[in-house]
């Protein structure tokens, strides 16, 4: 994205930049799309724009490690333009798109298409994960070197299984050859057995086909063994069970190069929320127990999980209109990502700087991106928000094209006032 040639002074805000251990009321100086100074104005600096950030938090633009934009392939649900605008209005400057688009991101052409569409829209930066296997079919390796060349920041088979462990091993080895990070969705295909809900009391009562905890832990165990074997840098996407989080913590303690994230809905909802066949809570992987939810919060606080993402999956209304098992899984999460995060701070689950870290520097580290950092010389992606402004989430006024959220009517905390992408204001309300 071309850097903005103007200069901006963000004045009087509380700057929280966990990558540099900064948390203080300071002025932030931006020119030519970069951070040029913090605190003291550089010599001869005359801002074109001054943003009064008093009583506001100034932090790096948020990085959402998993957001489905539905383009190419499912434009009836959403587009890159609609979702990147929703991201900008929620303080998110970088979105990472998994490869399960249609066509799949298994050729440089699809990566290039997404990049061009994102640039044309100009609201947010979009990075992509390439497919780990061709068509995500789990049989043949994709051309990972070409995908990397085309800009993919990692490789993943998204939610599609690689059933044969030998293919999995080869895929990890090949990715390691090019120093590509592998993003794994731990879900054993056979144990998951086409289920649609956590195998627990609620699924038993509702007669829903269950996905046992072991579908996740067995996959994590297999993957951890292969990660150690191959030495690949790996990331577990969307852990949903406390047990899997503890397995990852143990592996990290043992020095295995592995990271993991959690999606925001799993920190608030549980299997209990599907009690009335509420299709807005139909998620894959499924919402687990109340205990799992607490253990995920703990793992996020302790740093086993270094990112929290929206796992944004916008849908058209019809996709959620049907008997529970027949509906499409997923929540439209961009609009509520920051606010639900701030609620975690209110609930004392996380300190504010830690939350900012899990939404900025944490995911930047996982993706290997030079963002989520406000040091001098870094790209000026900035999110400015009023932490005490509260509002109610109304699905009709959501910016995302997908209105599918179980959080409608919830009291939301914090409102974004400005979003800067490489120094350029891409969002300001009103």
């Amino acid at each position, binding site marked *: 994205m071309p850097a903005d040639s103007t200069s901006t002074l963000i004045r009087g805000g509380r700057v929280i930049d966990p990558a540099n251990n900064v948390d203080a009321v300071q002025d932030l100086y931006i020119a030519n799309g970069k951070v040029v100074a913090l605190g003291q104005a550089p010599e001869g600096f005359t801002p074109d724009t001054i943003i009064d950030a008093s009583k506001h938090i100034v932090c790096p633009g948020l990085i959402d490690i998993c957001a489905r934009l539905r383009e190419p392939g499912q434009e009836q649900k959403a587009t890159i333009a609609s979702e990147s605008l929703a991201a900008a209005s929620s303080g998110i400057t970088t979105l990472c798109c998994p490869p399960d688009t249609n066509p799949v991101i298994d050729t440089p052409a699809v990566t290039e298409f997404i990049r061009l569409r994102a640039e044309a829209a100009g609201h947010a930066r979009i990075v992509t994960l390439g497919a780990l296997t061709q068509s995500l079919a789990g049989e043949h390796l994709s051309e990972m070197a070409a995908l990397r060349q085309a800009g993919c920041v990692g490789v993943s088979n998204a939610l599609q299984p690689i059933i044969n462990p030998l293919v999995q091993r080869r895929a990890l080895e090949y990715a390691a050859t090019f120093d590509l990070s592998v993003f794994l969705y731990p879900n054993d295909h056979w144990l998951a057995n086409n289920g649609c809900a956590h195998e627990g009391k609620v699924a038993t009562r509702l007669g829903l086909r269950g996905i046992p905890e072991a579908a996740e832990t067995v996959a994590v165990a297999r993957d951890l063994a292969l990660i150690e074997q191959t030495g690949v840098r790996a990331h577990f996407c969307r852990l949903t069970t406390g047990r899997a989080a503890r397995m990852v913590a143990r592996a990290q303690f043992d020095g295995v190069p592995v990271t993991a994230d959690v999606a925001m809905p799993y920190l608030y909802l549980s299997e209990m929320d599907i009690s009335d*066949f509420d299709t807005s809570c139909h998620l894959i992987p499924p919402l687990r127990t109340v205990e799992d939810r607490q253990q995920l919060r703990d793992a996020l606080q302790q740093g086993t999980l270094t990112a929290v993402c929206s796992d944004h999956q916008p849908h058209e209304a019809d996709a959620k209109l049907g008997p529970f098992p027949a509906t499409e899984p997923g929540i439209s999460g961009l609009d509520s990502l920051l606010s639900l995060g701030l609620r975690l701070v209110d609930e004392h689950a996380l300190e504010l700087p830690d939350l900012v870290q899990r939404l900025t520097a944490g995911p930047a580290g996982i993706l290997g991106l030079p963002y989520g950092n406000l040091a001098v010389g870094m790209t000026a992606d900035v999110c400015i928000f009023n932490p005490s402004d509260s509002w109610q989430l109304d699905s009709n006024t959501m910016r995302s094209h997908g209105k599918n959220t179980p959080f409608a009517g919830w009291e939301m905390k914090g409102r974004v006032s400005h979003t800067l992408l490489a120094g350029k204001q891409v969002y300001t309300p009103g």
Partner: protein
Amino acid sequence: MSRQSLQIDAKGRLRHFLCISGLNHQLITEILDTAESFAGVTEQTVKKVPLLRGKTIVNLFFEASTRTRTTFELAAKRLSADVLNINITQSSTVKGETLLDTLRNLEAMHVDMFVVRHADSGAAHFIAANVAPHVSVINAGDGWHSHPTQAMLDMFTIRRVKGPDFGALRVVIVGDIMHSRVARSQIHALNLLNTGDVRIVAPKTLLPAHTASLGAQIHHDLATGIKDADVIIMLRLQRERMQGAMLPSEHEYFELFGLTEEKLAIAKPDVTVMHPGPINRGVEMDSEVADGPRSVILEQVTHGIAVRMAIMSMAMSRREKEAS
């Protein structure tokens, strides 16, 4: 929306009939009492009452059924309603939009009640949540979730044979609980009627997670499970369960969990044997037991008509009262 508000209106009357778990003791008893009054009608030579004259009831079956659909049809006709049977195979509609479209089209024909069977758990709830306010929905079986009219006819049968004191009864359900909407509804109903001892007998592969949370004691051995039982309900074992890794063979299943005259001696001498049908003879029970003196399997079918008449007329009478 809570399931309570979906199937019961603000005055506590039946609006839809979707599952047992949202009901209460009083309502269940009312259904059984009403069914008792209709049982007389079905035994007369002129078997009709004019309660639902001029009403249109659609049997909307997305899954094959003979017994349930037929008894619903008979029940509706004996209430003098017009009945339309629509069978929609799996292949022609699986998507939610199509289901909703089907529904809207039928609604446009001024239908008063849908009797729905669908392979997806929650289908009846979904339809009830989306129909026009004047339409009632009766669940004739949704996925593994609920088959509440079957459970009610089973309770009716038990009450007729054993009397109204469920507290004195030990009722044992044997077989494939995991895939059984019948078992789930029966367990809820038995508990609402304060049954003294509700038991389940099955191998672990046929039990869902946390089965006990449904409200039953679990046994894996038939002999200990049915000891001194007053009622034994055998569930149908779907043949396709043999193809997965659920069970090794029909032979071993019958050896361990099949009901024979010999094993029946462990239960009380006056034990009643039930089965929702259709029976796999030689798999879950011997023909000798199925056709024997303690079996009430055919009575269950007959009672199905009266019970369904009761439920349909109760769901409809709410509307009559609202209209007047």
